[in-house]
């Protein structure tokens, strides 16, 4: 039945070449852990993407209950964590996944660095990758404030102080991120918008570019 449905759609839309172009490509021997176990280091990029998918999914579900408002944010987090079925698990996925994503991304960066994969002609993809790194750090930083507890509040104060130490622009960056005179209602609303709309959009765009480039240029050769 599934096959018949697929063929019905394919006959009309010709989707076969689309997914074949995405999925059908050879994995070179030197990056295939089935041939050389040490090639598992080439998995970290894919693992980072996998964790990002989990982050997006769990984040979408958390947003069904979370309220970005200084009166209700903490109460809504406590509610979704303690009073809903699987709340602790879904929030746990997002909480721990955030750290795992950064770890995987860092390991991927190390692999690219030590295999020299950033060299010509892949310099631009290195730049895209570093941009992804900063966007991910931004996601981590903005997400940290959202539960609106003491840890969140003071971590954000510290983060904003660090941002304000940038020469010349620091004060402007701090005010832009803070949204007002104090870390408060406006900061929370702003960090929420950055966390769920702006940064994920930037992340998806950069990931798209990252993947297009790796397909164009191919995986770097063996050492």
């Amino acid at each position, binding site marked *: 039945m599934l096959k018949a449905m697929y063929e019905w759609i394919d006959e009309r839309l010709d989707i076969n070449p689309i997914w074949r172009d995405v999925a059908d490509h050879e994995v070179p021997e030197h990056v295939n852990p089935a041939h050389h176990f040490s090639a598992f280091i080439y998995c970290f990029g894919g693992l980072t993407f996998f964790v990002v998918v989990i982050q997006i999914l769990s984040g979408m579900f958390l947003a069904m209950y979370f*309220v970005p408002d200084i009166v209700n944010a903490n109460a809504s987090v406590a509610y979704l964590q303690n009073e809903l*079925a*699987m709340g602790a698990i879904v929030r746990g996925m997002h909480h721990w996944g955030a750290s795992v994503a950064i770890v995987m991304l860092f390991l991927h960066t190390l692999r690219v660095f030590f295999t020299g994969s950033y060299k010509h002609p892949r310099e631009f993809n290195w730049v895209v990758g570093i941009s992804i790194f900063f966007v991910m750090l931004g996601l981590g930083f903005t997400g940290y404030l959202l539960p609106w507890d003491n840890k969140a509040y003071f971590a954000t104060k510290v983060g904003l102080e660090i941002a304000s130490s940038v020469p010349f622009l620091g004060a402007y960056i701090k005010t832009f991120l803070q949204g007002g005179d104090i870390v408060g209602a406006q900061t929370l609303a702003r960090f929420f918008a950055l966390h769920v709309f702006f940064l994920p959009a930037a992340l998806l765009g950069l990931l798209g570019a990252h993947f297009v480039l790796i397909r164009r240029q191919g995986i770097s050769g063996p050492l």
Partner: protein
Amino acid sequence: MGKKVSRRQFLTYTLGSTAGFLASGMLFPMVRFAVDPVLKKGGSAKYVDVNLPISQITQEPKAVQFVIHRKDGWYEPENGESLTAWVMKDESGNVRALSPVCKHLGCTVNWNSNPQYKNQFFCPCHFGRYEKDGTNVPGTPPTKPLDKYKTKIANGRLLIGPVES
């Protein structure tokens, strides 16, 4: 045994079911989390003293405001939620308390509010009408009579409970 399963098919099925198992392990907690409100039971509502001596209830429907306390997720309004009941005595002298929520699409009905329809409950949204006992007027949008609140009488005062189901 019927058809032989080719090696490619076997691998496709194995990989597919493994991937499906892993994906469902990931998706189950999230979906369960999202559908929790559907599976949760509602809290039991209590009877509220609406500060109305029985002697003041007449055959003429009277809007009675009363306050209930319930938690809406993480939010519980400090002053409670204000509800309205249309309270009257029926022909045999029993107390009747009608919910003002129109059974068509949930707007709020009012007693005697439209001069064209005397002594009826009228809903301004789609001109739904109800008789004094709450039965819907045929030919108007509502298909069911107004809900009745459960009532109790204690010490000569009216207590209003949840809507009768």
